[in-house]
């Protein structure tokens, strides 16, 4: 086990990279050629792209082959992501399923659940949204009030209540949600994690236009929605534990691969070089923030490799996931903020016929410190669980 430190990928990993690159070069649509995935047409266009990825088993490379993957490890997944972002391939419309629900299902799901749900998730035949937040339960997630009442006669549960800020909720076929199954239990207990078919009678979806005007998330209303027992993920009453596994994926290694930021930082340096030609004084005023943003992305890449090695050596990711989430969300903002400063008066150009990748990216980045648990909540986790400070 005493392997010396080595940051080179192996020949086999480089061969895997070459294969991925060659496939993506042949298949990936032109950058930004698909409509936004937060529109009905764009959602379907992105679904079609993911089906194409899946057909050649590139949609979920780290999953076992029986579920549509290639059974490769986390390092190969990172290599694939580097190539995916290098190719500027489309954003992943099934990210909530593939990156968040799937790791949780591998850990807690029954064999039947995995057989039923993972293959259509991999092919994007079924796209998932997340039903956690409620109007009165955001940062205080354990305060959720949506309820599931036992129905022994029917062999399942009857859900009622309201969820909100459900990403992909406007168009998704399935939802993974947290509901209170035991109203008497202490807050974190008595919750259960359900898999819900959005076509079930009683489910109403109200899309919410986001800051960019598109329906990236939705409110979900549940009125006596029946969910059978075999659609409970993990144990009844243990939903908090299951949800924290999902949250770990959301904050830790799974959701945001470093390639996303490395690629954006490279584009930022290109923009800086252009600006030096057009408006050298403006460029020089931004030199420090451009360098900082590039370093933030590089530090994220190195920290990811550090963490991935620990996981491969049998370690786990605990509260470090919260530090990770703070870092990637801040990095995304620092990259895009620096870009807008370089664009100067052009930064605000947006609308029909205007391609504004930096402004779109900035709007997206603004959500980072909020979703997946606000950065303030993550700082509490770092202080309490990494440094032992008392709960307030």
């Amino acid at each position: 086990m005493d392997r010396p430190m080595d940051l080179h990928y192996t020949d086999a990993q480089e061969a895997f990279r070459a294969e991925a690159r060659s496939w993506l070069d042949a298949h990936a649509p032109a950058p930004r050629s698909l409509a936004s995935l937060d529109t009905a047409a764009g959602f379907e266009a992105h679904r079609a792209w993911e089906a194409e990825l899946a057909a050649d088993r590139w949609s979920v490379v780290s999953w076992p082959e029986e579920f549509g993957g290639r059974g490769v490890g986390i390092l190969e997944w990172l290599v694939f992501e580097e190539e995916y972002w290098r190719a500027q391939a489309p954003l992943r419309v099934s990210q909530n399923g593939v990156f968040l629900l799937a790791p949780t299902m591998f850990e807690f799901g029954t064999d039947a659940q995995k057989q039923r749900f993972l293959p259509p998730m991999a092919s994007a035949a079924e796209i998932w949204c997340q039903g956690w937040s409620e109007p009165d339960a955001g940062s205080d997630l354990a305060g959720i009030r949506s309820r599931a009442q036992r129905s022994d006669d029917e062999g399942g549960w009857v859900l009622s209540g309201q969820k909100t800020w459900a990403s992909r909720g406007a168009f998704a076929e399935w939802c993974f949600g947290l509901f209170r199954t035991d109203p008497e239990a202490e807050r974190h207990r008595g919750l259960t994690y359900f898999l819900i078919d959005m076509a079930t009678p009683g489910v109403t979806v109200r899309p919410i236009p986001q800051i960019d005007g598109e329906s990236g998330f939705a409110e979900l209303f549940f009125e006596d929605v029946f969910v059978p027992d075999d659609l409970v993920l993990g144990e009844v009453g243990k939903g908090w534990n299951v949800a924290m596994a999902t949250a770990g994926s959301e904050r830790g290694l799974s959701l945001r691969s470093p390639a996303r930021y490395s690629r954006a930082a490279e584009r930022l340096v290109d923009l800086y070089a252009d600006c030096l030609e057009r408006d050298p004084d403006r460029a020089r005023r931004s030199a420090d923030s451009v360098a900082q943003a590039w370093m933030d992305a590089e530090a994220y890449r190195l920290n990811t490799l550090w963490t991935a090695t620990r996981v491969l050596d049998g370690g786990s990711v605990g509260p470090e996931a919260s530090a990770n989430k703070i870092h990637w969300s801040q990095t995304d903002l620092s990259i895009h903020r620096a870009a807008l400063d370089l664009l100067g008066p052009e930064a605000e150009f947006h609308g029909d016929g205007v391609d504004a990748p930096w402004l779109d990216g900035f709007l997206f980045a603004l959500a980072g410190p909020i979703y997946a648990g606000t950065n303030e909540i993550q700082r509490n986790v770092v202080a309490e669980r990494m440094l032992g400070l008392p709960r307030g």
Partner: protein
Amino acid sequence: MHFAFTETQIEFRDAVRQVLAKECTTDDVRAAYEAPAARTGRWDTLAQMGITGLAVPEAHGGLGLGLVDLVPIIEEAGRVVLPEPLAMTAGVAGPLLADVNTTAAGGNAHVVRWLEGVASGDLTAAVADARYPRLPVAGADGADLLLLVADGPDGPELHGIDAGHAPVVSVPSLDPTRRLGEPAWVPSPESLLASGAVAAWCIARTADRAAVVTGAELLGLADAMITRTAEYAKDRQQFGKPIGSFQAVKHLVAGAQVLLEFARPAVYGAAWAIDDGTGDTARAASVAKAYASDAALEASRISLQVHGAIGYTWECDLHLFLKRSWALAEAWGSAADHRARLIDSLLAEKP
């Protein structure tokens, strides 16, 4: 790809941590403030463990290891504010002398003697920052060996001189254990170690190594300050509860911890890049030093703030950590210096 230290490296680090916890308490650091000395009993202990010669080739009495082996140990030196110049002697002078020795035809008798002295712990070295060849040099006051940069007819030259031959004027520092000194010397053919392309190569490698080992020392300092501050925040009561239970305090400490978490792999990765010799080591070193400087400065800032007035006193040990952090944050390039160096390097590859 395997980005982790080996068990042997971790065990060596832990052994050093145990020794330093006994031999370098804050009382010891305070004693060094009163009577700064380059070599002490503690230095001899480290030398006997092989640490001063860790990166010196085995042929010259060292362990023949690399920066990856040394960095976790330098981190421990930072954790206890070690007064002796371990990072400069073991992490910079030793490898620099080894570089010079590989390029000197037939070997250089002085260089071999110095390499052996570094390995045995018989000498401490001070190395000038090539960007400021005429400014005071950290550790020069009381050093045995001075490695200095001077302008020559073909660009920068590297010189080495036994300190006995170069009177050093002490320069005061906020941290007296830095032992700043201004060598009063005139470069001569006798002191010349390298010129031209060889000197440029040696100096560039030295700047990268120095940035990385200084970064490692800053990691240890930042970790020590955050740990002490978290302990203080658990003990200190106001409004009937520990101040560490207030979010305003938690968020200060957590912010510094996040920076430190990301500075660590940056420093370790840069140490590996230098040992490996492939890739852009200057960029890696710049990311490492910028992140480590910023992490230590943020840890310094929040530590003083969370301690409050007690942290502003001479009696509280915190100032020992603050002063070393402030000095090292600027040494071998500040965070801003390294960001400027990075942007130049990134632009250089654009058409």
